[in-house]
């Protein structure tokens, strides 16, 4: 029993066979097309981003180095030392040691504050779970991605470093870019 193709079967379009005078003519034409393609790249100009001088812009939700925040009006820290971020951290890179606020020394708005807040950047995988876990929006992910250092010890970021107004070294991607 032979199979007869119906009307819905479309014959495969094949290019002309190579070789012969026609093949040579087409090869010449294709060479010219290739030359045009490469020359168009010169006209277009380079697309390289000259990295150390020129930085790749990041999207607004880019997850870079963390930031700790203060209340703008009172200047108190938002972090209450609940360690939920440390619990959420999959790579276990956050260390929080909480302490009680006293009327004489008030650091945060809540009952307790983080006496020690360290993030080991050499372990952090920038997943953003800490940001999600935080009930007070005390920790957020910033935009800085230039985090190399010469010593592993220098990559442990302390509370002071995270609270500091970070150097905004990274350009933000413009709308629609």
């Amino acid at each position, binding site marked *: 029993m032979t199979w007869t193709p119906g009307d819905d079967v479309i014959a495969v379009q094949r290019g002309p066979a190579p070789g012969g005078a026609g093949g*040579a003519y087409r090869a010449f034409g294709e*060479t010219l097309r*290739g*030359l045009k*393609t*490469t*020359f168009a*790249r*010169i006209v*277009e*100009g*380079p*697309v*390289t981003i*000259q990295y150390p001088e020129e930085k790749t812009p990041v999207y607004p939700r880019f997850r870079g180095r963390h930031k700790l925040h203060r209340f703008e009006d009172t200047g108190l820290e938002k972090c209450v030392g609940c360690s939920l971020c440390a619990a959420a951290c999959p790579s276990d890179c956050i260390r929080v040691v909480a302490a009680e606020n006293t009327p004489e020394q008030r650091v945060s708005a809540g009952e307790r504050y983080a006496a020690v807040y360290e993030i080991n950047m050499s372990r952090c995988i920038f997943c953003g779970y800490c940001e999600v876990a935080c009930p007070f929006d005390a920790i957020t992910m910033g935009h800085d991605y230039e985090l190399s250092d010469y010593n592993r010890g220098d990559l442990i970021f302390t509370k002071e470093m995270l609270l500091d107004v970070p150097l905004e070294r990274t350009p933000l991607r413009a709308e629609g870019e």
Partner: protein
Amino acid sequence: MIAPAVVGYYEPWWIQILKSIVIFAVLFQIVPLVLLGERKLLGRFQARYGPNRVGPFGLLQPLADIGKLLGKEQSRPVTSVGWLFALAPVVSVLTAVASLALIPFGNRRELFGTPVGLYGIDVSIGPLYVFAFGAIAFYGVMLGGWASGSKYSFLGAMRAAAQLVSYEVSLGLSLIGVVMTAQTMSLTGIVEAQGGMWYVVPQFVGFVIFMVAGFAETNRAPFDLVEADAELVGGYNTEYGGARFASFFMAEYVNILVISGMAVTFFLGGWQLPFGIHPAGWLEPFVVLAKMFCFVFFFIWIRATLPRLRYDQLMSFGWKVLLPLATLNALVTAILVTVT
């Protein structure tokens, strides 16, 4: 006995020495420029910058490259044949420079009170001289590959031998048309014969064949099977490093300049400009150099565009397409020259 050079006028010995030093010095300043230009242009062809870190606009990059290569240790494999291994790069550079002497950069001028031809030497056997040194240049590649005592080098050298021999024939035949039309073999004579019309127009087929075969002769893409870094690691120069590699590298670029210069001389009217424009005498070398740079640009453009041929494609193209075409071109030109 045929005189080695038919100059037709008297040139004192010190002018000849001075000329050779000037040509050598100027062209060797151009080689690093071509090197840098190639890397920068290749970058632009691929939508990137190319070297731009060393010096302003990366201009010192070739200097840094050469410094690096010269500072490297001279090493060679234990299986290599010592003195041939050392001789091969010398042969390559020597033949490349010797062919350089033939490119006419300008007409005869009065300099220091004596007539001086703005070219190394004007021989009565122009194209033959080029081919003679081109043939010796194979020895550089072949000896280099063989004396390395390495399989890859040897494969590269074998390919080089086959490729260069088959394309040399077409290269020679493509120039026969020009020589027949100009009725002279002196390169300055050929340039002067193009006063009315550049030979690129009546000898267009010859020009195309010359360019294609020229690409093969200089081992440039798409005919760079000799190096074929993907298959042969680097071909005949696999085992070379340091200054010897630099010599091979330099010879390759001098060969590009030589082929460009030959194309300018044989087909693009040398130092002459079209539409009856007669440049001042001192501009002639610059006209030639400008035309040469157009060809160098074309060489780089082709390299950025075309992929490398397969070995059997290379051979069948050389023998089945290029050689019959070149023969036909020579025959048709011969008939036309005899009839008219």
